[in-house]
């Protein structure tokens, strides 16, 4: 069905006459100017740009708090995406993602504008900020975030409000599992995939006779990552000595690290992210954990979710540490290269994985609108569901319709011993193929909810 905009230049009578014809034309034409048609069955939706010449997107990222570094990089990526969508700059991944209908003239001919907000990595603040974007700024889509707690909270709000949420960096299984929503989409990988990807590497590197001690960020992401990594490592024969929850943004982890020394564990698994991970890893190394021999083996530290920004923050402590990432700027495929090039030209340094996923999300949303020929969210959702594409840096990728999770290759990385530059901190150990990290859609339960709210 075609979607309409209010203009007031067409009378009701002409609509009745013209509806059949225009609908037919809509089906055939595809790219005709929408704003000349008025449909008797028009449905209103939030964020409808109407006849305005621009469309607004809401970038809701942490600008303060433990994930502020990621948030800043996400915002850079979004601004770059807006440039590319509006046909400025070199176009970045618009030239490499296939299939893509974007023409560099905004979305559906409307110039892309944006508003920003600070999630503070708090559910309350993030929802308030998202509400402001929806109610005051009339955004067509909200995207961003660097915490699963926030992603789940904002996704719930967006479902209620009927505005599409393109999740940024969120790694909890719950985001597209237990708490999945019809209006929420995630390009980033999740904790289960991390576990599946890293376990074989851990087995090769550290053997099957290991005793693991988990320190876990105390919220949805930490919980599901602990669960997934525990399951995956126990699968290769490891034992789990203890799992300890630590508050987000704790700063000082020494009280949690001291007991590790006497627990008999020989691997420390840090289910931390952002500044938390920088602090806990640095402190663990300062406590001399990695110089110890336990049970006749070298003590090891593993960080299941790794990023270049964190390796940068942790400095020497990150050398030799294994982990997984969604993407890394050193990848040699065409899409990654194009993105790294335009990001580098704009800001002078390579993008992080958070920037990558946010950039891709913005383009995918824009493309889905083009494909649907409307901003009506239920039509855009149908375009995103089951969308298959390539050229965004992770090989052939599928946006699974059943849970709105993207399936693509996952990287296992290690902190470089001799980095060439400030940014060349991780080396890719293995590119784990998509097939190895796939799982049935109903594994984590949850209900998507209705298309129209």
């Amino acid at each position: 069905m075609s979607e309409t905009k209010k203009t007031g230049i067409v009378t009701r009578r002409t609509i009745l006459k013209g509806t059949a014809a225009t609908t037919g034309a809509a089906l055939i034409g595809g790219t005709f100017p929408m704003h000349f048609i008025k449909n008797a069955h028009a449905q209103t939706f939030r964020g409808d740009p109407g006849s305005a010449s621009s469309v607004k997107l809401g970038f809701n990222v942490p600008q303060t708090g433990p994930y502020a570094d990621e948030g800043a990089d996400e915002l850079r990526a979004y601004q770059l995406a807006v440039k590319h969508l509006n046909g400025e700059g070199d176009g970045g991944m618009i030239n490499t993602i296939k299939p893509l209908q974007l023409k560099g003239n905004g979305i559906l001919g409307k110039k892309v504008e944006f508003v920003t907000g600070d999630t503070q990595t708090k559910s309350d603040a993030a929802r308030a900020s998202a509400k402001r974007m929806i109610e005051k700024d009339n955004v067509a889509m909200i995207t961003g975030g660097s915490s699963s707690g926030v992603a789940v909270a904002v996704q719930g709000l967006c479902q209620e409000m009927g505005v599409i949420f393109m999740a940024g960096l969120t790694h909890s299984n719950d985001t597209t599992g237990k708490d999945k929503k019809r209006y929420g989409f995630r390009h980033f990988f999740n904790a289960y995939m991390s576990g599946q990807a890293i376990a074989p590497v851990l087995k090769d590197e550290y053997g099957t006779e290991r005793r693991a001690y988990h320190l876990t960020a105390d919220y949805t992401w930490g919980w599901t990552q602990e669960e997934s990594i525990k399951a995956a490592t126990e699968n290769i024969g490891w034992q789990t000595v203890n799992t300890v929850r630590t508050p987000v943004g704790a700063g000082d982890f020494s009280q949690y690290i001291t007991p590790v020394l006497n627990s008999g564990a020989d691997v420390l698994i840090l289910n931390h992210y952002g500044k938390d991970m920088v602090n806990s890893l640095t402190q663990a190394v300062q406590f001399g954990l990695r110089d110890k021999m336990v049970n006749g083996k070298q003590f090891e530290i593993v960080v299941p979710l790794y990023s270049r920004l964190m390796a940068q923050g942790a400095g020497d402590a990150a050398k030799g540490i294994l982990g997984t990432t969604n993407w890394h700027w050193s990848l040699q495929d065409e899409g990654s290269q194009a993105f790294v090039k335009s990001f580098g030209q704009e800001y002078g340094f390579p993008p992080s994985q958070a920037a990558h996923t946010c950039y891709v999300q913005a383009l995918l949303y824009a493309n889905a609108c083009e494909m649907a020929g409307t901003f009506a969210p239920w039509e855009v959702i149908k375009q995103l569901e089951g969308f298959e594409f390539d050229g965004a840096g992770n090989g052939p990728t599928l946006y699974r319709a059943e849970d709105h999770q993207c399936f693509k290759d996952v990287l296992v990385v290690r902190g470089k011993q001799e980095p060439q530059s400030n940014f060349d901190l991780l080396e890719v150990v293995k590119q784990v193929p998509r097939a190895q990290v796939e799982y049935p859609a109903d594994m984590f339960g949850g209900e998507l909810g209705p298309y129209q709210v």
Partner: protein
Amino acid sequence: MTNTKIVSPKQDLIFMAILSVVVLTMPIWLQPFGAAYPDLMQKFMIFGIFAIGYNILFGLTGYLSFGHAAFLGVGSYTAVWSFKLLSMNVIPALIFGTALSGLFALAIGFVSLRRSGIYFSILTLAFAQMSYNLAYSVLTPITNGETGLQLTQGDARVLDRMAGIEADASLPTPNLFGIEGIGYSGFYICAALLLISFFIYLRIFRSPFGLKLRAIKSNQNRMGYTGFSTRPYLMTAFVISGMYAGLAGSLLAVTDPLAGAERMQWTASGEVVLITILGGVGTLIGPLLGAGIIKYFENIFSAFNETVLLNAFSFLPDWLAHPVAAVVGLFVGEGWHLTLGLVFMLIVIFLPGGIMEGISRLARLITNRNKAEPKSGAHENKEKEQASAGEV
């Protein structure tokens, strides 16, 4: 010290009428400030309730509680649980939220009110941080920790089921017999409750009970010597302000059915102190103004980004616009706390009585009443100020 003039009930009614008009027409007159959207106006109302309740304790008795966010949190959690277990109707949520916060305040007050001054503040702060940590990790089954307590499709909602209301495919929204808690209708629910709360608060201010609370502030020992036991009065004031906080907390859940532990953090307790001092401690309308200003800063200033600034300064030549935007950018966006801090410092230094003192000074200037400067503007409570504030 408390030179409260006798205010006739009629004058109070006129004052209430003016306030009602001002509050209910907010969607119109806030338009030019870019603040006339439901979520922010709801916040004005909710934090207004929170702040006037806090003012009953801090403004009247002078007891500085640093733990009021705990009551806000208890109110929110109770309301969300009421939505989950009983009904999506807001009435049970508000009643239970307020009542349970009152009980909670009774327990905390019982211990904390044995001390006064800084010791009282520290005790309340300790209790609030305890509640926060409980909500954050220990009581995760009840509070869902960091992720926050949310509604789900499969909630019991016993009363709704009994009344034959089944949730359809989408999540139900809190409502007052069909009037939704979100959007403009949500604002009017909050506004109605603010006006009711404000009327009760006004009556407390004018009552003999209110006078006794002021007496506690001016000299508790003397009060004791005249034969009053101050503890029951303090306790009542503490519980009432706890219930106001609980009501505010439940309303937060009504307008957005999610309760997060950060609502109980000390920063949230500090915020209400800030609001009250900024507006004017012990003044009738000051806390409402403070709530409005702080929430406005938090929501509007924090959203300014470089693009917005560059647009705003586009009248300047290009070589000047960028540096100006860069400098101003330090104070907006993520730097809005900096602006708030500066404003707060200026007000505390130059207007110790808060914005209300500024308004009354202005009023005096205008009416040309060259009275001597009052010794302690903070404790002034002139009817003139209230009347002029009502028209702001």
